[in-house]
């Protein structure tokens, strides 16, 4: 390859098949150092990259395999990986060369050969590979073995039944006892990949790492012992390892009873999580989305650290939004003042979306922390004074909920809101304002005038606003039954809704009000103006069962979208806590097993590695759990996460909400201090940051 700071940019030019073919032919003679061939191949690789179809050159390129240069071999292999499947009929040409490499003296070449072959899943190649792979899995060189382990996963992906029949899964399992940690790590990765497939083998490996860990969880003290070992990994430099260690700890805590140890672990988890915030913004984002889950399940974590989530001016927007949500979650009476000051600062920034969410958060803070409500309301009023349209609209939306939270306390500010009626042009804010006018029509002198103005464009309004207008008109009439204007108004609106509107909800509601008013206006009044139930909001936090389940996906995409992966990724399997004698009894009450669909007709049972298991205290497996457990030692986080996957998939079950078990969490917020937990209903499931996977079909967009 060209020297330090290569000069290959010149090859990035579109070329024609004919030219390359001619150049390759010319290179066959007088090419002592193979420089000519190297040059042509580089051009071809560049063209592949640019999306130029180079497959017609297949036979010509394959000719180059005869050259002894490793660099040329690698380029030809790259070509084969790209076009091998298209040219399946010609692949037999390269098999001899592959086979020769598989038996090369150089372990790097052997590994390269099986790695490349396994990337070309066509029958001819797979046929040749299976035989070689058998040898390579037992190669004396660990580098070849670790490559072979992954090859089994590739083989399984291409042809599961062949891999099973060939006994490769068993051979892979045997690698779990390999003396080399890298080999073990790759074997774990490969096994967990196979196990994650919906049609994959269900692991019932009596003595493997996986099952040893599960059986190890028979007693609380076992979970505690493992946790103590995992805690050390919280100091690892790789954020994936840290998050995976946290995942394991959170999982194990479901099986512990030693409260002091659990408190200790919670304390230990905080600082590494905060440290993740000094990584690159992308990792920060992953960390923040996970923190949001963790603090809901274990509120002791980061309880006093709200300050570290204050936004920096130059944070990317996705980091800011994620921080905003965490700030709200961590807000309490003690820190409400600081949080509010920050939110006010954000409300004057430039990004519209961020500003809106900051304003909303101020309202939510008022609702969550009663002693801070006064200051929050004042802040909202100040913001309304700015007359910036989107700020005012957001403020109106939250103030509506503040009224419902503290009835009879802040109605004095209604005139201020009414001054800015004309700034409201979005359905949500308009509907909120209309609700306020209707609900407090008895306190607003000119409510009938306002309503008259608002209904002027009734038929053009969105449904949300029409519904609000309808209810408000009825309320107004009930408050002031003797006024001619209100009578005319309610009549007009009822007539529109029942005769001119297509929306069935609106029409039905119209008929309902009409009949109520016609039959008995007094009773109608009692019903329409009945005392509103306080917005109980215990669901502000996600329910326990859902959280437990999501936290089994800590660090993964599922934890970012706060969705179980099986709900948005095709072919993903769900996970749930595994039942065992050590599982907290309260959690067990509500266990629901995760269903696996598309099971293969028969499940395959594979006995454990090594000698057939005598008793539980088998020396080999003991050794695995105690010393060589590959999770922590791996330098690439893959191994760690893979191991956990093994622990949690399969014959599992889920816990769910009401167990309210021993937990720290159940105590602090849920009840008295925050009656508003179930804010979901109030805000329509509003979250500061709600990234979502999109359900569009990819093909439509290409």
């Amino acid at each position: 390859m060209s020297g330090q700071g290569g000069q290959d940019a010149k090859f990035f030019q579109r070329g024609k098949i004919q030219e390359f073919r001619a150049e390759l032919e010319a290179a066959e003679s007088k090419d002592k150092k193979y420089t000519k061939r190297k040059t042509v191949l580089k051009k071809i690789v560049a063209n592949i990259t640019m999306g130029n179809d180079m497959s017609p050159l297949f036979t010509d390129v394959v000719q180059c395999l005869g050259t002894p240069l490793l660099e040329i071999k690698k380029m030809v292999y790259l070509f084969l990986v790209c076009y091998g499947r298209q040219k399946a009929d010609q692949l037999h040409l390269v098999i001899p060369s592959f086979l020769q490499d598989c038996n090369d003296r150089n372990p790097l070449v052997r590994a390269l050969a099986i790695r490349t072959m396994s990337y070309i899943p066509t029958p001819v190649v797979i046929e040749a590979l299976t035989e070689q792979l058998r040898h390579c899995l037992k190669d004396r060189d660990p580098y070849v073995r670790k490559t072979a382990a992954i090859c089994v996963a590739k083989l399984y992906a291409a042809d599961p039944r062949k891999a099973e029949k060939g006994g490769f899964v068993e051979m892979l399992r045997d690698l779990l006892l390999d003396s080399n940690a890298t080999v073990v790590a790759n074997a774990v990765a490969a096994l967990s990949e196979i196990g994650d497939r919906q049609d994959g083998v269900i692991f019932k490996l009596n003595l493997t790492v996986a099952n040893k860990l599960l059986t190890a969880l028979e007693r609380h003290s076992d979970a505690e012992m493992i946790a103590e070992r995992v805690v050390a990994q919280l100091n690892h430099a790789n954020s994936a390892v840290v998050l995976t260690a946290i995942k394991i700890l959170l999982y194990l805590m479901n099986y512990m009873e030693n409260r002091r140890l659990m408190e200790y672990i919670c304390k230990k988890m905080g600082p590494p999580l905060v440290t993740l915030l000094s990584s690159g913004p992308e990792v920060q984002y992953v960390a923040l989305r996970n923190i949001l889950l963790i603090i809901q399940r274990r509120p002791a974590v980061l309880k006093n650290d709200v300050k570290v989530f204050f936004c920096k001016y130059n944070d990317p927007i996705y980091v800011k939004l994620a921080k905003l949500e965490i700030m709200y979650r961590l807000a309490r009476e003690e820190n409400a003042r600081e949080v509010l000051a920050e939110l006010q600062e954000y409300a004057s920034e430039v990004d519209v979306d961020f500003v809106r969410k900051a304003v909303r958060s101020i309202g939510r803070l008022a609702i969550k922390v009663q002693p801070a409500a006064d200051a929050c309301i004042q802040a909202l009023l100040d913001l309304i004074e700015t007359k910036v349209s989107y700020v005012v609209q957001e403020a109106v939306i939250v103030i509506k909920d503040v009224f419902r939270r503290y009835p009879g306390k802040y109605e004095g500010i209604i005139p201020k809101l009414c001054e800015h009626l004309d700034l409201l042009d979005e359905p949500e804010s308009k509907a909120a304002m209309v609700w306020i006018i209707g609900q407090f029509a008895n306190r607003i002198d000119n409510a009938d005038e306002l309503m008259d103005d608002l209904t002027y464009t009734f038929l053009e309004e969105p449904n949300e606003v029409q519904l609000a207008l309808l209810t408000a008109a009825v309320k107004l009439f009930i408050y002031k039954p003797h006024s001619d204007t209100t009578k005319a108004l309610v009549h007009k609106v009822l007539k529109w809704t029942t005769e001119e509107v297509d929306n069935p909800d609106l029409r039905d509601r119209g008929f309902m009000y009409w009949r109520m008013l016609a039959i008995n206006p007094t009773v109608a009044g009692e019903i329409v103006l009945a005392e509103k139930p306080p917005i109980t909001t215990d669901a502000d936090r996600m329910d326990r069962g859902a959280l437990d389940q999501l936290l089994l996906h800590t660090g993964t995409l599922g934890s970012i979208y706060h969705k179980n992966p099986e709900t948005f990724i095709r072919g993903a399997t769900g996970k749930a806590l595994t039942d065992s004698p050590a599982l907290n009894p309260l959690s067990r009450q509500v266990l629901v097993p995760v269903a696996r669909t598309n099971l293969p007709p028969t499940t395959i049972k594979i006995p454990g590695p090594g000698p057939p298991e005598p008793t539980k205290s088998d020396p080999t497996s003991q050794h695995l759990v105690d010393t060589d457990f590959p999770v922590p030692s791996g330098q690439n986080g893959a191994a760690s996460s893979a191991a956990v996957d093994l622990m949690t998939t399969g014959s599992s079950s889920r816990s769910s909400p009401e167990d309210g078990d021993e937990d720290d969490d159940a105590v602090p917020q849920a009840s008295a201090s925050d009656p508003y937990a179930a804010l979901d209903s109030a805000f329509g499931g509003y979250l500061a940051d709600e990234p979502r996977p999109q359900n569009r079909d990819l093909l439509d967009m290409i």
Partner: protein
Amino acid sequence: MISGFFIFNQKGEVLISRLYRTDLKRSIADVFRIQVVSNSDVRSPIITLGSTSFFHVRINNLYIVAVTKCNANAALVFEFCYRFISIAKSYFGKVDEEAVKNNFVLIYELIDEIIDFGYPQNSEADTLKTYITTESVVSTSIAAEESSKITTQATGSTSWRRGDVKYKKNEAFVDVVETVNLSMSAKGTILRADVDGHILMRAYLSGTPECKFGLNDKLVIDKNERGAGGDAVELDDCRFHQCVRLDEFDSTRTISFIPPDGEFELMRYRSTSNIKLPLRIIPTVNEIGTTQVTYVITVKTNFNNKLSATNVIVRIPTPLNTTSVDCKVPLGKAKYVPAENVVVWKIPRIQGGQEVTFSGTAKLTSTTHRQVWARPPIDVDFQVLMFTASGLIVRFLKVFEKSNYHSVKWVRYLTKASGTYQVRITVSEKIAP
């Protein structure tokens, strides 16, 4: 895991494209180009469409992209992208479009090695360089034994170090680099102040040296285990290079390790207590009518007068409708940069214990509608040599090796800020005289 890896340039052209799994087609690159590169409002580093997720990291106008079709470990994928960038830096110095194009064949070779079927493999640049070289290699010429050595290292328990390293002079350089993050309110209250510390080591040591590393005597590494007294240096958290034995650290608090050869980051830590802020900024900003904004900004250095802060750059935000700014400074140079709406005040060097003041007036054009000025904070960049804001000090570095050679150790300290040392401003309004 990772199904495909791509590098795009700013125009959305594919510079590198490698698929690891058959569940993707090459044309997936077009989706990324449409959804991210040509989208002016990208609000997440992760985009999921259907079951396909795109993870991207930007560097020098390049997009490093990993694509997955499963519930991938997001932290792992991003760590991998960062690691790719650092390997690329170590191989060819910088990572930009030109470098990628000039080394594309090498990059293909690298990414074939560091990911297999989507699973990250050994990604230690030092080890990779032993078998993925920039020199032409004739396959028969590599002795099989030589390769065995390489493979043992690539998979061994100290995959980060070759066994046969030899130096005439055995030296180790330790750099303690601290980045101070400050966010101060306009009234001078500290909203947050913390230190991100990195201990970088360049080890040029022969054989397989066993190192022990010691920090301040009064060091509290876990804030929860108090008891060292008020003036102790407290670290909230620390993370170590994979060579450090974590179990030993966990039980006895000793940092012992066999270092990689050459440069690496030994330790990263974070501290939030007893932070010594090297610079103090005192801003006064007044709006006079609608046509002028006046600034008086004082910078005080807060350390021993034998030390000095260098490369100090103060960025003072100006309203969007500023036409010109009159600047007066006793030290350095100040200039209005209209494109960024800031006055940049550069001071090459300030001694400890000194105080300098910027005064200036921004003239504004009258605009028909008032543009919202978000009042960004004042931002200060600087470097102070031989100073640590956390107070952390390296007490010793011991090297033990079979051959018992003598080794020389050097320690340097640097405290710096870049883009993270910020003081918010409030603008008080005054009526024009």
